[in-house]
């Protein structure tokens, strides 16, 4: 039980820190940290959504950045066309991601293992090139969003603190949802399929149906992150869909601990903070970050959450 309490304590500390961050930012006058952490929270949300399909369902989706782009472009394109309401932009972003996930999932789930990785990657790259070809919406150069999503005075996304809390609320909402799903009937079936597909078929579960639904839920959640990310940067470009971004999300999940509830959030915080700190020290920050991640993955099985568990036992 002690092992649980260590990782629980660290998790609680991290969550409390995230909630209190704007307070610190106000008191210290450090606005940058609020901007940085808004980005971290949005990508943590994306990593958490990836963890649902990768950690719990055991399906290595290597194209998750596509949803960031789809969610982002939904906001950007609607804004460009004069539809500024967040009540329209966000549902469209989420719905478009769901539809994309449904189609891509139905095709990709015909394959397994390395082929599944490659085919999800290929589709995401396709989305990347499609976005690059959208001349009306900036093509390669991307699309500037001149006005953030408008929620009719309910919440002002132009206000840093309000936007931060919106993102945090979305993250907590998604975490809550994932927690419920993972322990539900559906969640057990999906995890059972990760463990032993043949056995699950033999006791009467059609594998693909459940995996597809999980794939769609995961993609939909990530689409929400995309809509937030576009608002955060006031800009969306094909680059958010590039495969290295999908790789970053995977690294966050693995770093934090695949198949744990809070691992991806932890992973996103550590990964992006390291990236930020190291890039201030040297231009060649990737040279340090790379080996560091390697060490963590090699020696910290189960990622940070796994290491915390062992620290508690040891």
């Amino acid at each position, binding site marked *: 039980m002690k092992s649980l309490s260590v990782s629980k304590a660290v998790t609680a500390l991290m969550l409390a820190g995230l909630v209190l961050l704007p307070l610190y930012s106000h008191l210290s006058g450090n606005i940058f940290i609020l901007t940085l952490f808004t980005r971290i929270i949005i990508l943590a949300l994306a990593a958490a959504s990836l963890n649902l399909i990768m950690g719990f369902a055991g399906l290595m989706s290597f194209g998750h950045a596509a949803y960031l782009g789809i969610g982002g472009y939904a906001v950007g394109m609607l804004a460009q066309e004069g539809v500024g309401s967040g009540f329209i932009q966000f549902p469209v972003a989420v719905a478009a991601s769901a539809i994309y996930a449904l189609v891509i999932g139905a095709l990709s789930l015909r394959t397994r293992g390395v082929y599944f990785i490659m085919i999800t990657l290929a589709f995401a790259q396709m989305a990347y090139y499609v976005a690059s070809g959208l001349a009306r919406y900036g093509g390669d150069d991307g699309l500037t969003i001149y006005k953030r999503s408008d929620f009719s005075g309910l919440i002002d996304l132009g206000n840093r603190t309000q936007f931060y809390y919106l993102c945090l609320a979305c993250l907590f909402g998604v975490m809550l949802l994932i927690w419920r799903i993972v322990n539900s009937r559906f969640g057990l079936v999906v995890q059972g399929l990760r463990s*032993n597909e043949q056995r699950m078929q033999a006791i009467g579960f059609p594998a693909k149906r459940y995996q597809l639904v999980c794939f769609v839920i995961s993609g939909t959640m990530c689409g929400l992150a995309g809509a937030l990310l576009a608002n955060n940067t006031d800009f969306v470009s094909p680059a958010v869909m590039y495969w290295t971004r999908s790789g970053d999300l995977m690294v966050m999940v693995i770093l934090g601990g695949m198949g744990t509830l809070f691992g991806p959030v932890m992973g996103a915080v550590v990964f992006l903070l390291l990236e930020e700190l190291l890039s201030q020290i040297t231009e060649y920050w990737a040279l340090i970050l790379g080996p560091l991640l390697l060490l963590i993955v090699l020696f910290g099985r189960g990622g940070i959450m796994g290491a915390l568990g062992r620290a508690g036992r040891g």
Partner: protein
Amino acid sequence: MAEPLLRVEKLVRRFGGIIATDNVSLDVASGELHAIIGPNGAGKTTLISQLTGHLEPHSGSVSLAGRDITYLPAYRRCALGLARSFQITSLLLDFTAADNVALAAQAHAGTSFRFFANARKEQGLRDAAQAALDRVGLGHRADVVVSRLSHGERRELELAVALASKPKLLLLDEPMAGLGVTESQRMVKLLQELRKEVSIVLVEHDMPAVFALADRITVLVYGRVIASGDPAAIRANEDVKRAYLGDQHVVTHHG
């Protein structure tokens, strides 16, 4: 005679030039324990795989309680009341024994597209799991993760998982495989109990067990049925004797 529970008619399955299932026909009556025996390579597992839906036959048919299931996928057959155990233990290793069984019960208790309620707190499923575990003598190991169970316990758990789906017909693929003497005896005892409740097709190498349990025995050699009948008849059958003495050519030329 009433419609048999399981009817296999003229089943053929080839692997390249090899005919692994050669015109196999057999009936399993309701309440019967029907054993399928044969030397190594006789095509027992190939036959079982076609009954469970893991392998498609090239011709012939399989029907369960009068319904043609020849080309139904495994999960549909399970819903119709066909449960199986695997020759090589196949369980969810990172789940507890109770979770393994509860999932089998869940598959037959309404939809699994429920996303919010905690499935481990569904009393109906937990009770069903506990009942099946108690049935095979694993009740006290319910909360142990499968990867920590012994081989013998896993064999018993396979059985509990199959039972949890409340099947009409149990297909047991070598349930004694790898068991020690005492464990085997326990398994035979258990099967003797279970056969009162459910029809069973038993594929097994353990001859004393087969002859102690079976109502009828079908003998496969080179994919072909060479004999079928009650244990006494099989014991007396000359072809079967030859097959088990190793002189299989005589047998194959015979049919």
